[in-house]
């Protein structure tokens, strides 16, 4: 048993497991920032009074959220990079990393948009009516009354999207990012098959440790920020 453990521990000096998790965390951070920006833009389009923008936003969301992320990632490498010869960096690794970020962003932006829109939907009509009754026009009403409540209502679904984004960052393997966790786990198991359970559990528990605090924090935040009605 002690032998097994010490030999298993030796694997960590050969393979950079924390480094692999760091790649996934970086993918998640970039994906979260960019998809929050794109998703907010899409949500604004979808709730605007302008029909053409609303239509474009709806079209984007319906297409992207029904496409498998794996196809988007594969498309980035095989279609955009190989076939269209668009590259995002001279450096190979950086190029694939950026393609993975773009893939994660355009996919999760659709879900961020829906999360924010669902936040807008939690605001009762009476709030908007009251805002108009005291003489606020559209923009001040949106800024002072609707949006602050909407963002509070969107915390829980946004947190869920963030957790999904972290887990989905492993799909970067399909965009040839070779240093992230799922690729490293595969290599480690292939070369050390007698430790297959221990290796899988290491990576799995790593994700549990990352995911559960995010879930607890967003639940706490959404309860704290929820507008009691």
């Amino acid at each position: 048993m002690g032998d097994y453990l010490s030999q298993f521990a030796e694997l960590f000096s050969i393979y950079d497991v924390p480094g692999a998790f760091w790649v996934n965390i970086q993918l998640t951070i970039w994906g979260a920032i960019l998809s929050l920006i794109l998703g907010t833009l899409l949500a604004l389009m979808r709730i605007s009074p302008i029909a053409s923008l609303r239509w474009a936003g709806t079209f984007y969301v319906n297409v992207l959220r029904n496409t498998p992320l794996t196809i988007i990632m594969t498309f980035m490498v095989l279609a955009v990079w190989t076939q269209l010869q668009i590259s995002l960096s001279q450096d190979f690794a950086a190029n694939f990393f950026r393609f993975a970020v773009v893939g994660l962003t355009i996919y999760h932006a659709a879900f961020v948009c829906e999360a924010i829109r669902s936040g807008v939907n939690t605001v009762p009509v009476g709030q908007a009516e009251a805002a108009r009754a005291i003489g606020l026009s559209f923009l001040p009403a949106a800024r002072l009354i609707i949006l602050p409540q909407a963002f509070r209502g969107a915390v829980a679904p946004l947190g869920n999207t963030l957790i999904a984004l972290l887990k989905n960052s492993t799909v970067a393997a399909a965009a040839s990012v070779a240093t992230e966790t799922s690729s490293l786990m595969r290599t480690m198991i292939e070369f050390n098959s007698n430790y297959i359970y221990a290796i899988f559990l290491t990576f799995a528990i790593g994700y549990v440790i990352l995911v559960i605090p995010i879930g607890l924090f967003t639940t706490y935040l959404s309860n704290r920020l929820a507008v009691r009605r």
Partner: protein
Amino acid sequence: MSSQHSVLFDAPGPRARRRVLVGNIIGAVVVLGVAALVLLELDRKGQLSWDLWGPVFTANAWENYFIPGLQNTLRAAGFAIVGAVVFGLVFGSGRLSQLRVVRWLSGIVVEFFRAVPVLLMMIFFWLLLGFQHVPNAPFLAVVISLVLYNGSVIAELVRAGVGNLPKGQGEAGLAIGLTRGQTLRSIQLPQALIAMLPALVSQLVVVLKDTALGQIITYPELLRAAQIFGNGNSNNLQTLTVAAVVFIVINWLLTVLAQWLSRFLSGRTAGATAAGPGIGNPTVVAGGPEAGATADATTR
């Protein structure tokens, strides 16, 4: 759409209508302009030529690649959703059990499989079964992983579904002398299951999308079939687009079905009939303050 108008805007007057019209024209020009730019750029790179698109619409492509691939996708998704419902029922009722040990064990299993990326599970089961020389290892790995993840999500749906029923249902069951287990099985679960149907259909969309992960572990599903065909013809952009469109059409139809079911059932059951968000874990937690909010949000 109309429901959002009522929150955000007054009925527009003549001046607002003029402004909306101008905005609409500008918006349309921008959207069409972006689309035109993309098409022009694709044309400049010769990507619209029939040499590249033609092979995609031949009998060979569909008979030998797309349709067998789609069959494999649907087969894996079908087995996975059935297994996931069984898994979800077992562990969902486990989390509602009277016995603390059962509740804890079910809780640990559900939380674990909800937190681990599906791709990690697929690679693990694929290599594990491969080392044991089990035939069909990629297919089994896809199905097992999807059952574990989606089953855990469904277990949470079951728990939330029972929690969202009016309290009187459980109380009435106990009042007529049923045990807690009997009340759960014959009164609460049947109602919760009907209320869950829209969320289950949404989960089927998640399952279908996740079967595409099978490409990474060599399961010959639609994406992999399309990719093999595209590599042979050097037209990956075109074949992957077709594969994506097939996925989008199927998933979009299922999404529409989920939304329709949600509206159809909402008048017919006491439970909350929200469609799922189509990603990650459903936020409907039993009795939580956001339960009603997300229920509203996702039915739109």
